[in-house]
């Protein structure tokens, strides 16, 4: 973990009201894994005060070296400010943070479930495991078409299934249907999305009786991102209390419910 300034190399609205921000990759982010996150300070002074937690969305080789990106919807002052950054602007970053996804080395079939903006870290995971020659199916779910990450931006080797609640794109319904269908096929599953989605996935996984390992990447309101403010508590099924930022954000789904 370090605090550093990262230079913006590209800022764009990518789809619907979802933005992508590309930044130059500093030494501090040399070793990172999909599912890890950063805290971004969204302003110059003390207001807004706290950083915003953002999963690392993707990596690429830019014209002047390696770059990383975040994918976000505008939900408040912080993300509004981020969306207004332009090439050459500097953003203060604390990272890398948290424990990311841990695909088992020998598994061949990976099922990725992204609900809404929760697809952000899964895109990078899909890039990585597809490049390793493993089979990847990525389920992208949203309320409507405007919330779906454009499938053509993914590597051709990644099979994409889209679900929308209003049926405007792909299957009508939620991600739980393809999850249920594909659970027997996969060796390991990875999910990121809103909290109710995890509850629904857990219910499907439990009913299946297959005991497939499902790694859940939680989103939580964070103050610091590295285990000192105790904002992002989760209370696992077996008791106790964990911090999403420090003990996660990746948790075994079975440990949560």
């Amino acid at each position: 973990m370090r605090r550093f300034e990262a230079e913006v190399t590209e800022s764009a609205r990518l789809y619907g009201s979802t933005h992508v921000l590309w930044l130059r990759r500093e030494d501090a982010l040399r070793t990172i894994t999909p599912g890890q996150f950063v805290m971004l300070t969204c302003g110059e002074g003390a207001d807004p005060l706290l950083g915003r937690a953002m999963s690392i969305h993707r990596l690429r080789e830019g014209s002047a070296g390696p770059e990383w990106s975040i994918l976000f919807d505008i939900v408040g002052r912080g993300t509004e400010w981020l969306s207004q950054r332009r090439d050459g602007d500097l953003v203060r970053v604390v990272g890398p943070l948290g424990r990311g996804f841990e695909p088992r080395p020998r598994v061949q079939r990976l099922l990725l479930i992204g609900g809404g903006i929760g697809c952000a870290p899964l895109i990078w995971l899909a890039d990585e495991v597809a490049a390793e020659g493993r089979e990847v199916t990525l389920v992208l779910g949203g309320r409507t078409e405007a919330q779906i990450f454009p499938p053509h931006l993914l590597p051709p080797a990644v099979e994409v299934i889209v679900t929308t609640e209003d049926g405007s794109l792909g299957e009508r319904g939620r991600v739980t249907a393809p999850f249920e269908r594909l659970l027997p096929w996969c060796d390991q599953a990875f999910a990121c999305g809103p909290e109710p989605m995890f509850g629904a996935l857990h219910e499907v996984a439990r009913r299946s009786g297959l005991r497939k390992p499902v790694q859940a990447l939680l989103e939580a309101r964070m103050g610091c991102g590295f285990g000192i403010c105790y904002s992002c508590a989760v209370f696992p099924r077996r008791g106790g209390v964990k911090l999403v930022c420090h003990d996660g954000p990746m948790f075994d789904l079975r440990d949560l419910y």
Partner: protein
Amino acid sequence: MDLGVNLAPRHKVELRLRNPVMTASGTFSNGLEIARHFDVDELGGVVSKGTTLRPRRGNPTPRTVETPAGMINSIGFQNIGVSALISNVAPVWAQWQVPCIVNIMGDTVPEYGQLAARLDGIPGVAGLEVNISCPNVGVGGLEFGQDPRAAREVVSEVARHTSLPFLVKLTPSVSDIRPIAEAVALAGGHALTVSNTIPALAIDPKRRQPHLATVFGGLSGPAVKPITMRNVYLASSVVDIPVVASGGAMSGLDVVEFIMAGASAVQIGTASFVDPEAPWRCLRELRAWCEAEGVSSLDEIRGVARRLD
């Protein structure tokens, strides 16, 4: 340049800090996470997460909300309990040079005594900070800090049960902090921490509900600095024990201002959430300021902003 300060000059066991920059309780965990990344021994002092007799899971979420230039928290004393602190944390602290101070919070007066007794003589524990000001727990905490007689009882109880030097952390939620400060000093507190978060509320208009699960919380961050400044000024004008400022410091210049108001040391709290290196940065900035101003000891500026009356 000597930035050193003794927070317990009247006690047989000193609490000597090599500089006045400390961490604030509840904003540094127990230091073990941060120590993996930064050199804690450069700091003046470390204060633990608020510690209770038994472990606590803390309050439900949401526990924090950002507000203009600040935040409101209601963590509810999530902590590992004094036994785990003694067996798992103190042995690590014992390897450090920096004095580590345990913030203790009891539900009753005897619990404060028990906590003090348990921590007495534990290697790695350099002192205590007695919390009589937490706004986020049902019993104890704040109620001891709003009544001089109750505060005196807690302080006497702690003094009877430990030979460790101890600070007493006061609340800003009083109409006048001076009577409490005087009562604590008279009862044997070795230093004051001024102060804690300010009880506050934020409403979420979308949900038409309070932002926090517990409704109320405590406000911290740069928004509260002027309030802390006034209380440091007032408290340090009526007691002759050291006053440690806690509430709103974000920079080395803030540290300078608190010392000018009468503080002996300054705790860095919410600033660490934004920048894990904040305590170290504040220290660097303080040194640079002293150098630029030709200040060689903080005694030269301590309380200089106070008007004698």
